[in-house]
C-alpha cells in the first residue's frame, strides 16, 4: 500500500545524475540508500542528486545523504544536490548540515559545479 518512490538514473559525460521521485521518509530512505550505494560503488567522479521531484524529506533521508557525502569524500569524488524544494531545504537548514553539502539551484548548475 505504500506510495512508492522511484529513482531515475542518467549519465551526463562522466557524471551520474540520480533523480528520486516521491517523498523520502523512513519507509523509502533504505531504497534510496541502496541505489546511491550501488552507483557510488562504481566510483563516478561526480554524482548529482536532482531533488526536484522530492516534495518531502525527513531525517532518515538526510542521514542517507550524509552517508553518501561521507562515501564521496572517501572516494575523492563530488556530490552535488540540486533543485531542493522549500520544505526539503528547510529540513536541511534545521539539521544545520546544509553547509556541508554542495547545493546548486538547477540541474545545469549542478552539472557545471
Amino acid at each position: 500500500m505504500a506510495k512508492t518512490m522511484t529513482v531515475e538514473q542518467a549519465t551526463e559525460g562522466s557524471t551520474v545524475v540520480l533523480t528520486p521521485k516521491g517523498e523520502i521518509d523512513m519507509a523509502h530512505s533504505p531504497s534510496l540508500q541502496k541505489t546511491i550505494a550501488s552507483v557510488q560503488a562504481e566510483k563516478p567522479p561526480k554524482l548529482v542528486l536532482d531533488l526536484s521531484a522530492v516534495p518531502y524529506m525527513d531525517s532518515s533521508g538526510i542521514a542517507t545523504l550524509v552517508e553518501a557525502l561521507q562515501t564521496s569524500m572517501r572516494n575523492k569524488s563530488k556530490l552535488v544536490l540540486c533543485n531542493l524544494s522549500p520544505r526539503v531545504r528547510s529540513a536541511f537548514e534545521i539539521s544545520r548540515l546544509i553547509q556541508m553539502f554542495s547545493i546548486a539551484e538547477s540541474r545545469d548548475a549542478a552539472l557545471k559545479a
Partner: protein
Amino acid sequence: MSRDPDISIRIFSAPEFLRPVRVMVDALASQCGFDDHSCGLISLAMDEALANVMRHGYKGQRDGRIWISAWTHESPDSLEVVIEDLGVSVDPRTIRGRDLEDVRPGGLGVHFIRHTMDECSWEQRPGGGMRLRMLKMVPAAAPEPPR
C-alpha cells in the same frame, strides 16, 4: 487537554503509515491557521516522533500500537498532539538530540522535534510505553502599521 481530542487515530508501527499521518497533520495545522512553512515543520516533527517510536520504542516491530490524539485550541490558537505507545519505556531524561557538530547519519529526530515545536515533553505511561506531548502556537499576526 481536558476535552476529547478533535482527531484520534490508532496506527500500527509500520513506516508506510507515516505519510497518511503527515497528510492529516498538515491539513489540521493549515486549518488551525499555520502558514505553509509551519505546516511543513509540524508534519516533520510528527513524522520524526512516530519514526522514533517505530525505531526505538518498537525496535522495528510492525504490529505495535501507536495512538495519536490532536486538539486545536483557540485563544491562543494552537495545535496540540499527543502520541502514545506500548513500546520500550525509557527515562525521559535520556531523550535528547545529538550534538549537531557531530556530522554523522542519524540521531536528528529529537533535534527536529525540539526545534520545531514550542513545547514537547516525554513521559512514561503508567501502563507501559511512552507518551509524547507536543504543542505549537500559531504566531500572532503582525500589527497593522499606523496610517
